[in-house]
């Protein structure tokens, strides 16, 4: 066993012991989702993080309709957005690019400022990268396939940090969202973005005249990373690595972590079910391979040249069993995967730099992206 596998084994053993001590207080989904265990919640995250994530939770409750439709206008109104900024701030500048007119697919490109001039001309935006090796991280924001955009403040902020942290160019894809655009739209958009990035001459590393591509994403973005990587493999585009932050996976079965953590740390099974119903093709269930890639309808990746993966799992995320199963699935197929299990982390810990998990993860990502030099 590798070190991290050992750590994982130990942690799961501990949880199994703890589970016996837990009261099982769930009587049906309704009770579970209504049970407010705010004290637990508040103790594991800083107060401003708690406020941030609780605010999202509250707003999202208002936006989801029981009939499966989504209040898109109110969602767009409430989402805090920031414009792109061609003026460097904190050493990073950004601009939006219309990749595909047909679908209106925009991406926001973040680049490190080289420090030459304060004002960048429009021509400088696509100036070729100068270093020998420049990682290009294609980022897919989270939001359970329905919320947020590339220009959401939380994701603009995160991408800027990634640029500095990894000395990378980051391309954040504004993929089409559910329920208006179901599977496979998000994957199609991811694929379009990948092809676009791969064909930009100004993103080619000097060393080998190739674009050094990594895929990264959180929540639904993590799910998109997996599926876009699959397409890349099938089409011969080289992806050097996948980074999945609290990736969104699921299945028909109710796992132990789902039952145990339902409603405890900002997330309920009920809302997870809603988002899958909104994204997956109508009439399918959560064993659809988009949701459950190594499930009954999934396929083995044995023998496939799949990129190495870094998977970050939060110990207080109710879908962790699915995320861990994903890691297992990759391992069984002989794929290279590193699991970073953060015991006391909740969803969204990476949105604010006010906790240790954030820094641990940023370090790992930085190493992951530079290790191909």
């Amino acid at each position, binding site marked *: 066993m590798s070190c991290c596998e050992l750590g994982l084994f130990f942690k799961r053993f501990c949880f199994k012991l703890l589970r016996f001590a837990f009261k099982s207080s769930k009587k049906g989904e309704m009770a579970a989702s209504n049970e*407010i265990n*705010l004290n637990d919640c*508040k103790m594991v995250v800083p*107060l*401003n993080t708690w*406020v*941030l994530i*609780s*605010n999202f*939770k*509250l*707003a999202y*409750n208002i*936006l989801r*309709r*029981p009939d499966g439709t989504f*209040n898109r*206008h*109110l969602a*767009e*109104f409430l989402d*805090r*957005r*920031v*414009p*792109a*900024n*061609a*003026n460097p*701030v*904190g*050493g*990073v500048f950004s*601009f*939006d*690019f*219309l990749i595909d*007119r047909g679908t*209106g697919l*925009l991406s*926001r490109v973040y680049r490190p400022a080289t420090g030459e001039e304060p*004002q960048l*001309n*429009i*021509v400088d*935006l*696509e100036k070729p990268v100068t270093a020998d090796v420049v990682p290009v991280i294609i980022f897919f924001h989270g939001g359970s396939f329905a919320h947020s955009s590339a220009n959401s*403040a*939380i994701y603009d*902020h995160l991408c800027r*940090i990634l640029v*500095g*942290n990894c000395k990378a160019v980051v391309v954040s894809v*504004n993929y089409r969202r559910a329920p208006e655009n179901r599977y496979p739209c998000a994957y199609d958009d991811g694929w379009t973005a990948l092809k676009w990035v791969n064909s930009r001459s100004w993103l080619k590393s000097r060393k080998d005249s190739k674009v050094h591509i990594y895929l990264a994403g959180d929540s639904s973005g993590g799910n998109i990373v997996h599926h876009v990587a699959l397409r890349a493999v099938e089409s011969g585009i080289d992806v050097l690595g996948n980074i999945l932050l609290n990736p969104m996976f699921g299945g028909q079965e109710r796992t132990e972590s789902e039952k145990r953590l339902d409603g405890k740390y900002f997330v309920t099974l009920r809302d997870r079910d809603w988002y899958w119903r909104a994204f997956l093709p109508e009439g399918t269930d959560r064993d659809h391979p988009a949701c459950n890639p190594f499930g009954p309808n999934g396929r083995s990746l044995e023998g496939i040249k799949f990129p190495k993966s870094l998977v970050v799992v939060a110990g207080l995320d109710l879908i962790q069993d699915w995320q861990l199963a994903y890691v297992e699935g990759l391992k069984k197929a002989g794929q290279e995967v590193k699991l970073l299990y953060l015991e006391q982390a909740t969803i969204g810990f990476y*949105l*604010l*730099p*006010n906790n240790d998990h954030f*820094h641990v993860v*940023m370090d790992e990502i930085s190493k992951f992206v530079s290790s191909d030099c």
Partner: protein
Amino acid sequence: MKRDNNHLQPNPDPSSSLCGGSSPGKANLWEEEATQQDCGMDELLAVLGYKVKTSDMAEVAQKLEQLEEVMCNVQDDGISHLASETVHVNPSDLSTWLESMLSELNPPSFDPFGAAGKTAPMGTLDDPFLGGPAESSTLTTLEFENNNRKHQKRGQQIFEEASCSDYDLKAIPGKAIYSQNTRTQPQTHDSSSSSTLNNVKSEKRLKSTSGSHSDIFPPPPAVSYGIPTDSVRPVVLVDSQENGIRLVHALMACAEAVQQNNLNLAEVLVKQIGFLAISQAGAMRKVATYFAEALARRIYRLYPQNPLDHSLSDILHMHFYETCPYLKFAHFTANQAILEAFEGKKRVHVIDFSMNQGMQWPALMQALALRDGGPPAFRLTGIGPPSHDKSDHLQEVGWKLAQLAEKIHVEFEYRGFVANSLADLDASMLDLRPSEVEAVAVNSVFELHKLLARPGAIDKVFSVVKQMKPEIVTIVEQEANHNGPVFLDRFIESLHYYSTLFDSLEGSVSSRDKVMSEVYLGKQICNVVACEGVDRVERHESLTQWRNRFGFAGFSPVHLGSNAFKQASMLLALFNGGEGYGVEENNGCLMLGWHNRPLITTSAWTPANKTTATSTITN
């Protein structure tokens, strides 16, 4: 272990400033948006778009908990009420937003089903008034009074689905505003006295307490010119082709040569641009052509003839109105704010700084006509530039509006004012009535920036506006900084801006409309690039800069809410399926953009220390 993570954080804007004192209810918080450490705002949340004071954090957390509990009890009905009925305002101010929702769900007499009855504001406009170029006369002012007391005849109105609040305008389809119609003589109607019930609102309006937490302004600048420029430059690139890049290179190089007064080089380069432009396609070619022409004018000192024939100007304006949603968005959002400000008022007076053909007003008049309890008496003062032939353009417009008012039974009074500049106005000219008798709204669409060409003009206008004691001042302006002191910077900014704008026109169905709109915008480009001094009137500034100006002049913001946002979004869907266009909320203002690039902004203001004067206003 916490570590120094400064390298991971974007640096705060170095031009931050200390905050001053604050007083509740007044917009006297002077803060720089980027750094709030000195004023106790949680930095981390601020970067993510939420303004919460560190000292308020626990209280905000408490409100979140309370809301969660209430929502669990209220279940789906209450939640859907919050989603569809409630008007949300300024979500960045978490504390106030949460408080509003709490009071929405927990009022003493809570009625989640809004049993007070809804009326839909307006249907599609079936009373268009004549379009077309105006004949003009030499009269400088004209008064129209519609002396018939009108009351609302509900049977004649068209109602739409009741999913909006009482005071929402409906999205106006394009051609409905202007269509050919024969003139009719004003008819006399039998009038019966209208009931003067106070309007009953069935929905609660969530207002963020103006000025408390959410409105922050930097300290007043020393001079009215030289407002610190915005440090954010949003750019969207569409298509990067080889030729496009060379073309842009050439444009930049030429502008740089002009900046350095190297006119020989500039001359050579401007000719190159011409050749390169031909090989381009679409929007880029047209934009480059206009910029090249403007550069040429600057180089050869062939400044554009300023006075544009009025009728041509009107035609261009109208085509622009039809081609793309910018003007409609402007009118729509401004009208929404005015409508809400006029709630409960019996007599209202709109002073329009941007009268043109009066296209903004039919929609507002229609909405007022459909108001609960009947329309107010509506007075309109339209201000416009002089015409060059002997026609009285403003009179024509007023006449048409009077006819409309007649049809929809709104008591109407009109006055047109010709003025070379808004700064020529004095409050005494406007026949203002006491504010408890008549509520005033001041409206300006794409006019205010022109005042920045003359020192002191904008300040004069601000002062006159305050004398009008308006309930609301609605402003629509281009979202760009085309007024910086350095020519090259202005050139680059405007190149980005108009490239985006032209790109958005490409999808237009009517090629004639498109061409006219391009000419309309081309004139602006020419002014920005070729003119200087008092001739350069297209001095666009960004929302941040306008916020500074209004704050300094003693105005506080009035926030536009989720209802206006939603209606504006629906309006956009009428244009080419809405593809590419987007509305964004920004601290109570609404921005319309193309592919994420904000292009125009609607904001609303009110004098910060409005007092209800008992004496008359005339001076």
